[in-house]
């Protein structure tokens, strides 16, 4: 670790041991969240989400493809994440890093498990289905990419317009129907530092966290979980964080619903 991060980290750790966060934020509070819908008209759907200084962008594209052999009546859903080198001095160009693959897969799992998109509705005709691409672009890193990216993917799906398919051609302009979104899933990410747990860790907190837990849920049930880093959680802690995630996800769902631009 760079000595500067080490020095900054020790300070954050010392404060957290006293139950105080750097910005004076409550331990289970989010930073301010802002959603911008449909900012990229070339994409079928798009949204930008800011959580504090973390800024992520999701673009949705749909292309005609052949279905998977074992699921001939279902479309494809593909999620990818790019940790752009302009987002952080620690990100580098090159093939996807394990971090970016984990990020994309966790977001994907929540959306899939919650049945946000009915993949059968992406069927076009025998041998032809829609492939739906969720591309996640991280523009500025300051912690908690999981929650920001799930929010952005959810928001972008909610404003996605379905292209048409006529005479073997894809029609992307004109009066298009909206993609049917069947559920709303959000995630809450907690960092564990020593024996303290906080919601929505910022970059400084993530630099020193021992463990991380992401819980994705809809209104009723848990849809995906991912623990990261070596630090462990007790079962009691897990139960507490599940309760917290149900409580906090209400705020997130409200933010998504109230942010609707059209």
């Amino acid at each position, binding site marked *: 670790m760079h000595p500067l991060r080490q020095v900054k980290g020790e300070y954050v750790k010392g404060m957290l041991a006293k139950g105080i966060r750097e910005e004076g934020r409550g331990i289970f509070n989010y930073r301010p969240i802002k959603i911008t819908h449909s*900012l990229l008209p*070339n994409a079928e759907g*798009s949204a930008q989400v800011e959580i504090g*200084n973390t800024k992520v962008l999701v*673009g949705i594209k749909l292309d005609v493809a052949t279905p998977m052999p074992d699921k001939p009546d279902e479309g494809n859903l593909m999620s990818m994440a790019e940790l752009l080198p*302009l987002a952080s001095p620690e990100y580098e160009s090159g093939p996807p890093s394990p971090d970016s693959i984990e990020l994309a897969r966790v977001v994907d799992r929540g959306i899939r498990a919650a049945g946000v998109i009915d993949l059968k509705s992406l069927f076009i005709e025998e041998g032809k289905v829609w492939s739906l691409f969720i591309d996640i672009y991280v*523009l*500025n890193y300051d912690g908690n990419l999981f929650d920001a990216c799930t929010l952005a993917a959810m928001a972008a799906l909610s404003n996605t317009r379905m292209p048409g398919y006529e005479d073997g051609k894809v029609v992307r*302009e004109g009066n298009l129907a909206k993609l049917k979104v069947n559920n709303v899933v959000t995630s809450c990410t907690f960092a564990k530092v020593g024996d303290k747990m906080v919601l929505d860790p910022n970059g400084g907190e993530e630099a020193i966290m021992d463990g991380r837990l992401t819980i994705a849920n809809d209104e009723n049930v848990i849809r995906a979980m991912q623990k990261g880093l070596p630090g462990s959680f007790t079962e009691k802690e897990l139960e507490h964080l599940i309760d917290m995630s149900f409580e906090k996800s209400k705020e997130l769902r409200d933010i998504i619903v109230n942010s609707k631009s059209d």
Partner: protein
Amino acid sequence: MGSSANKPELIVNGKRLDGRAFGELRPLKIVAGGLKNAAGSAYLEWGNNKVIAGVYGPKEALPKHTQDPEKAVVKCKYSMAPFSSLEEHNRSGPNRRAIEISKVTREVFEKVILLEDFPGSEIDIYIEVLQSDGGTRAAGITCAAVALAMSGIPMTDLPYATSVGKVGDHMILDLNKIEDNYSDADMPVAIGPRNGEILLLQMDGTLTKQDIKEGMDLIRKAGETISRLQREALRAPYERISNKYKN
């Protein structure tokens, strides 16, 4: 240049398809800043293009063998988002086109940055095209110039870029995607406005010497507008705060 078989009419009644005159720029909006982690950043909308640029450094050049003991080295990466085009989804990752654009963009900035001030260091320029509609390399250069100025890196000039092309007998400015695809020629140019030096020049298609002269005139005239918008974008964040406390 596209095939002539299904070539659309690009000029109808003396106007271009989007209603522009031959020498008219698309609407251009530049915002300086926006990315907290970068030393400098900028966002730009140019017609339907949307581009973001971020600058890191100067910092120690790594790996060490890339260091130049006399001056800073510039690294530049231009890339297009997979969701950036109106057509199908693009695979991410650099292709041959992006690698070439990154190189010619880097050379623009190597000319204007005071590299000797930072021996042994590197300056990274990242250009991400979020939405594309023709002319993205010009948009990227115009945007990156603002991001570099925001980073405080000293430069002899603030470059801008745009393109000209030829449709029938007419030279047209600032080609959008469809014009770029079907025009008879396309010529992107970057200029240092301080003394008018040409910092980037590429061309393909068919042009006469007279066409090129005419095209350069269109570019320089448009350059007055582009430069002014760059300068205004750079002043805006400071003037906004100053105005807050005026009177």
